[in-house]
């Protein structure tokens, strides 16, 4: 007989979905706890989506922006005559060659002079290399006018059509109308550099009183060359130019195809992405823990379902589906919320690094990845406890006890209980916290990870500030002034005296140099053509230096009698791995000089080498630049302005003046972005930790309903119950705080050592007390907020019902 029953042949929908109805009602019944889980997964997914989205957009846009400028493969410092240009253009393997000049001029802003980089372009209309794009105004700029980089607009207060006053060295100042604004993505933002950026034709440049000669030859190597091929081709061309009678000063080849800030951007995004993934992993563990607790409470129901015929796989599928549903819901809420945040973060990074987000769309793979993570993460995390629960036997499931185990008499518990003193309630609170050790550890880990990042980040900032402060304590002058052309010492000192504003002055020599790997006088510097980082300057120190006292790390400082001797700074020393006694070849204006290293000094906010001033004159044939380190009379108001006016009256041109306060600010500003990102990650983790704590406390209150009923029946007023539950939360927070201090120490040490490789010196090991205090305040607040609702609920339990709770 194989006659099918009606229910087998035509099962109605309701009978088929009945277990899903149960699942749905279970989810509903635990709505509060499920919402907390949803929020925890949602917060983690939000972090991941924002970071991954910004990572994808920024990486793409930086490349698009930078490659869009068609960056030159290399730039050769040489007077670009028509012959030189012709030779370069016809040179085998060179696709493009263009003349360009980049000079340091000064621009007047509110009566003071600010540094301005002037880019001189041969032909704006046909420019092919290192291009920049018009934003507004007239393009190309008419004769006698100039374009300004968009980010320099506010820095120098430029307006379209209005005049800006520019002067080049000691030449007379020239008012130049601004024809419009451009975007040059290869430059660091003007506000960061405290510099103006101007673009003009050679005709206009000549108005500033400079000889109309281009000083750089920019080339593009054919095909898709490697860095080594670019270097080799640039060298080959430079040698060919020299063979033709041209004088090559320097060859610069920036890292191939990489925006000047690409590394910083990638590193900071990757770091934050790692933290977001970490928070996602922790949220997953949290979900697993909450689920394990829920399953423990459902074990009797699981037993009943199995008793009436449910298979392990059916039960497992139900709970996995619930988790997947929860994850999907979290994803549905947080992904759309994260998209604008990711775009905003990309734009912020664009503003910081001076690139434009041409296309803010987040690639589809990011959506796909985060969406799958939202479903997979909770299901994978919950899998072990689901498998365990669904495989349990009927009799075991039906007889499962919901009683929470008593603590074992571990010595640690004894020590911690002693903290409670004589109060039995406090002992109860502490032991309750330690009852579910796994859950407590999870909450502690979540909060402590956030705390370690927070304390670590702010401590590193404090350490870095202490290092940056040595830039002030090792320098005893106010301003460093570089002259635009050599001036006789007597005339210079007379002008200095005449200002009446100077207390002390030292005259130094300075010249750009290259630490050479080869000794034939030509070498490639790995620097960008914007006079950016990576350049090496050789200073000629006066005999009686007193306005700087750099600590000597190894060897000794210069003696007046020293010749062919150089003192290096820790950065340049660390870079090349050179020791005292080594010889080093310095290329100065294309000439190789071999010097012996006699000392290493630590100089924050600078880098280069020191020789005696007379030695520098000898090495450069008296053509070194002049630099003054000036200490102003503290009694004189507006000393800098008086000093500059006096030099100007004497016809002495200033290329740049740089105050040590500005140096300090620039140094301090370097770490703000990563510190802010670490603090944001800490806050994300604290949020997830707080949600974790809230769900754990909710579960704990449910599990201990009967105990709470007993307490109330023997005289506990609601306030006592509230105090006990809140104390449990506070105890967890306190433990996490202690763990976070312990975890912050290696972070501070590690970043400090990383600082050694980045800045030449390890950061001092400082643990920020304000950070510790603030974090304590944060975790205390988080724990009170997290335990408030469960505590209130516990205090409202009806004794009769609580006592009947199973």
């Amino acid at each position, binding site marked *: 007989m194989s006659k099918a029953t009606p229910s087998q042949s035509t099962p109605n929908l309701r009978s088929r979905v009945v277990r899903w109805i149960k699942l749905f009602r279970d989810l509903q019944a635990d709505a509060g706890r499920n919402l907390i889980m949803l929020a925890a997964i949602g917060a983690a997914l939000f972090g991941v989506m924002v970071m991954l989205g910004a990572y994808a957009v920024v990486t793409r846009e930086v490349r698009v922006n930078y490659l869009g400028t068609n960056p030159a493969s290399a730039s050769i410092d040489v007077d670009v005559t028509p012959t030189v240009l012709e030779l370069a253009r016809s040179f085998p393997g060179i696709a493009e060659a263009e003349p360009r000049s980049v000079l340091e001029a000064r621009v007047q802003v509110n009566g003071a002079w600010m540094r301005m980089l002037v880019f001189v372009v041969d032909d704006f209309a046909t420019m092919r290399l290192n291009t920049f794009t018009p934003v507004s105004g007239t393009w190309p700029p008419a004769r006698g006018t100039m374009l300004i980089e968009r980010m320099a607009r506010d820095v120098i207060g430029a307006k379209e059509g209005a005049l800006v006053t520019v002067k080049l060295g000691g030449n007379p100042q020239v008012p130049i109308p601004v024809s419009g604004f451009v975007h040059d993505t290869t430059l660091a933002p003007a506000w960061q550099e405290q510099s103006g950026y101007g673009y003009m034709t050679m005709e206009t440049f000549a108005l500033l009183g400079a000889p109309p000669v281009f000083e750089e030859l920019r080339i593009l190597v054919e095909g898709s060359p490697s860095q080594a091929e670019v270097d080799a081709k640039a060298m080959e061309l430079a040698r060919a130019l020299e063979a033709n009678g041209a004088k090559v000063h320097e060859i610069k080849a920036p890292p191939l195809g990489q925006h000047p800030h690409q590394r910083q951007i990638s590193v900071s995004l990757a770091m934050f992405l790692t933290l977001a993934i970490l928070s996602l992993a922790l949220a997953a563990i949290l979900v697993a823990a909450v689920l394990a607790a829920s399953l423990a409470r459902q074990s009797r129901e699981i037993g009943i379902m199995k008793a009436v015929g449910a298979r392990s796989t059916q039960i497992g599928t139900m709970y996995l589906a619930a988790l997947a549903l929860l994850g999907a819901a979290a994803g549905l809420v947080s992904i759309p919320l994260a998209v604008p945040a990711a775009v905003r973060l990309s734009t912020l990074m664009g503003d910081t690094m001076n690139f434009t987000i041409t296309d803010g769309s987040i690639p589809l793979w990011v959506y796909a990845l985060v969406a799958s993570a939202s479903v997979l993460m909770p299901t994978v995390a919950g899998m072990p406890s689901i498998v365990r629960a669904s495989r349990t036997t009927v009799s075991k499931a039906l007889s499962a006890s919901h009683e929470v185990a*008593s603590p074992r008499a571990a010595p640690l518990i004894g020590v911690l209980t002693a903290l409670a003193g004589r109060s*039995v309630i406090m002992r*109860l609170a502490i*032991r309750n916290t330690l009852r579910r050790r796994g859950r407590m550890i999870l909450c502690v880990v979540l909060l402590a990870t956030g705390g370690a990042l927070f304390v670590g980040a702010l401590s590193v900032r404090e350490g870095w500030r202490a290092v940056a402060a040595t830039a002030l304590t090792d320098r005893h002058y106010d301003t460093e002034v570089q002259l635009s052309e050599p001036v006789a010492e007597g005339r210079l000192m007379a002008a200095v005296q005449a200002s009446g504003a100077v207390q002390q002055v030292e005259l130094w020599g300075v010249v750009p140099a290259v630490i050479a790997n080869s000794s034939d006088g030509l070498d490639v510097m790995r620097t960008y053509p914007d006079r950016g980082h990576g350049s090496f300057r050789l200073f000629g120190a006066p005999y009686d230096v007193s306005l700087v006292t750099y600590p000597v790390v190894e060897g000794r400082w210069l003696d007046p009698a020293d010749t062919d001797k150089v003192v290096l700074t820790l950065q340049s020393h660390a870079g090349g791995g050179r020791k005292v006694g080594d010889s080093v070849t310095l290329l100065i204006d294309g000439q190789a000089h071999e010097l012996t290293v006699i000392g290493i000094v630590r100089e924050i906010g600078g880098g280069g080498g020191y020789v005696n001033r007379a030695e520098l004159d000898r090495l450069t044939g008296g053509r070194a630049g002049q630099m003054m380190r000036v200490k102003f009379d503290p009694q004189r108001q507006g000393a800098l302005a008086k000093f500059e006016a006096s030099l100007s009256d004497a016809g002495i041109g200033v290329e740049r003046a740089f105050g040590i306060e500005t140096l300090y600010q620039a140094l301090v500003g370097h770490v703000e972005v990563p510190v802010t990102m670490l603090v944001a990650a800490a806050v994300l983790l604290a949020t997830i930790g707080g949600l974790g704590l809230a769900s754990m406390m909710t579960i704990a209150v449910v599990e201990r309903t009967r*105990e709470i009923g007993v307490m109330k*029946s*023997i005289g506990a*007023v609601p306030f006592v119950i509230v105090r006990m539950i809140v104390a449990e939360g506070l105890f967890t927070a306190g433990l996490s705080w202690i763990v976070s201090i312990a975890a912050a120490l290696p972070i501070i040490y590690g970043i400090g050592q990383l600082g050694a490789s980045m800045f030449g010196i390890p950061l001092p090991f400082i643990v920020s007390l304000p950070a510790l205090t603030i974090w304590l305040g944060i975790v205390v607040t988080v724990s009170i907020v997290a335990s408030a609702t469960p505590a209130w609920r516990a205090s409202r339990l009806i004794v*009769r019902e609580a*006592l009947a709770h199973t």
Partner: protein
Amino acid sequence: MGNESIVVRGVSKVFETPAGSFRALTNVSIELKASEFVAIVGKSGSGKSTLINLLTGIDRPTIGEISVAGETVTGKTEAELARWRGRNVGIVFQFFQLLPTLTIAENIMLPMDLCGTYSSGRRERAIELLSRVGISEQADKFPAALSGGQQQRAAIARALANDPPLLVADEPTGNLDSKTSSEVMDLFRSLAGRGITVVIVTHERDIAKIADRTIKLRDGHVESDTLAKHPEPAE
């Protein structure tokens, strides 16, 4: 304290359930004297537990009034009730209900801590109470390490912590073997002899032999109220 330790006057209790109203007690009036050892008996659903929940202030009557040691229990707020219970009523549960994270001594110190009593010698008092119930050597163990009988003795010691005039026990021997049950019952008997009113809800058939008075409930009414004829056991 007057001679009538507990006065229950015209008390009814109605539970509103999704299935409709359920009348657990109807117009119950009883008066219990100080030092009386009272057994409340009856079948399941007769209203025994409801009555002692009302006596202990764990639940409130729908109508009627209850006073214990001259103090009206009805009309107090939850917090007032909790405070009142802590000082005036000792409760012993069927499943002992010791807090698993506190040691036996700490369990007994808990009501003193909650009510702010005996602030200078709580541990000493706990040990003394434990000696009284015969398990002082178990003071520093956690409940899980004790047998059922020992746990119930500890629970009785906890009920005595604040020296209450009334001790209420709901099926205190329901979870114990017969030998331990009779030991526990003897303990209650001796407490009643020391001036405490002891009210016990029980299924024990022989309870009438040791209780001073047996009140039998049936369907929420007092079916019978019998005074024992046995002599007071010698202490």
